[in-house]
């Protein structure tokens, strides 16, 4: 039976690094990335508007 004990992670920043060049240089899950972009489109637009709006000169 699988344990349901609550996990405690090791200190962040300590995970070992290994060469994964065979997985790099491409998007591994392109369909999910596209779906994410569609859902996040309003947030992206909102942030772009915020960047494009000049600061209020009265402040």
């Amino acid at each position, binding site marked *: 039976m*699988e*344990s*349901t*004990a*609550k*996990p*405690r*992670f*090791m200190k*962040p*920043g300590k*995970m*070992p*690094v*290994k*060469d*994964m060049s*065979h*997985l*790099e240089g491409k*998007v*591994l*899950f392109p*369909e*999910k*990335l596209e*779906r*994410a*972009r569609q*859902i*996040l489109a*309003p*947030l*992206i*637009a*909102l*942030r772009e508007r915020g960047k494009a709006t000049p600061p209020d000169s009265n402040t």
Partner: protein
Amino acid sequence: MNLNCYPCFANETHLVYEFISCGSKGAVKKVVEYAWTGLDDVYNLAFGDFDESTNDINDLAITNNGDCLKVLSTVAWTVQEFMFWHPGALVFAIGSTGSRTRLYRIGIVNNLAEIQKEFVIFGRAESGIWEEFVVGKAFTSFLVGRKENKEVLWNQLQNLDL
């Protein structure tokens, strides 16, 4: 090492992680990816099985390896590790299917106490409205950020044109 997670490795950029799921069906290599969405600090979390014979990744595979909670805990651990190396990032997650999204929710609930020490999680309801994650409510996707960015993020999510 956390006994409830599999040993896990990161690549040099800390955008890709891999670990081996060991269960009733044998050993299955899992890959976790944080892909930049094009929005300055938002990354998409995805994970699936890696077939070394074909170099293919399958995020629809149902491994049934009997270690679902341990796999989800390991993925949650990669979130913490990713956020350590990319502290300003937001992580977006959506399942490849409805049942996979429910699995993500189970993973969040099972790791919630540990996650909430440092992070805030927002969930997107079927209506498209974002709200802070609560146990027992169905969400279609998730957004994770650092606690200190909660207010800024929340203000943005409340002002979305939906």
